[in-house]
């Protein structure tokens, strides 16, 4: 979506136009959902958080000042939701297995299941910030600067999170980490 059209839709949405907001949802849902799917693991949970994040974004649209991209702003809201939910989850007993988290990923080829499980396990063991950085930047949906903005981290920290996180994920797959970042 071109920036002028996005600005127009944003203006309309701020005045209560749900149709304009719906078009913004359509424009940004792939990136936001991809980020959350990589972060959370379960597609259903990821989409649930994404929907809550978009609904919350509607309420705080007036706080968006245009300094970052709207996509980054929505991802920031989503990340806060995920972190809050994760704290609540930690208070409960872990009841889901890695297999059930993969149940709803229909696009997965059967031969990739062991790799996906190993990656998911490695991802779950990473600190929250590092995990979020990888979820944003590995798919090249977000730049390092955007990730720093969303996660409120220094750019250098984002870069080091990527290098270390990538090495952990590659080690989980039994691959030698790449030497270059």
């Amino acid at each position: 979506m071109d920036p002028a059209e996005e600005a127009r839709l944003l203006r309309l949405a701020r005045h209560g136009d749900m149709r304009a907001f719906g078009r913004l949802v359509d424009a940004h849902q792939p990136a936001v959902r991809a980020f959350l799917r990589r972060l959370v693991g379960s597609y259903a949970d990821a989409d649930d958080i994404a929907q809550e994040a978009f609904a919350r974004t509607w309420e705080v649209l007036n706080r968006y000042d245009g300094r970052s991209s709207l996509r980054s702003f929505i991802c920031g809201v989503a990340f806060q939701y995920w972190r809050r939910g994760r704290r609540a989850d930690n208070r409960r007993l872990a009841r889901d297995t890695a297999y059930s988290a993969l149940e709803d990923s229909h696009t997965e080829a059967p031969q990739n299941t062991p790799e996906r499980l190993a990656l998911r396990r490695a991802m779950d063991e990473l600190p929250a910030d590092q995990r979020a950085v990888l979820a944003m930047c590995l798919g090249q949906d977000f730049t390092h600067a955007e990730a720093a903005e969303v996660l409120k981290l220094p750019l250098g920290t984002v870069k080091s999170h990527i290098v270390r996180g990538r090495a952990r994920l590659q080690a989980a797959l039994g691959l030698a980490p790449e030497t270059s970042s």
Partner: protein
Amino acid sequence: MSDDLSLAALLGEAPKTPDPGFRFDVLARVSARAARREAWTRGLMQVAAFTAVGLLAALVQFASVSSGAWIPVLSVAGALAASGVFALVVIQGPKAALARARTVFASA
């Protein structure tokens, strides 16, 4: 398998096309949250109104005014409150008879 895009694909993929169902769910959540917020505000208003009435009664008693002197005032206030509630129910309530009638007359 070792490049970033492959890792990202294994971790989770973006939907190929924007999903209209997802949009509808988002808009439904927006409406539900707005309704919840409205109900919360309405509840607070009701609590505030009843608290004010209770405080007024206490103040009247504190001022040693006999309750008999306040009966006409309280009767009028009660009648006005009942009319207000009735009007709200007719305009915004589950049947909203008045609002529907206005729509019918406007379209005629």
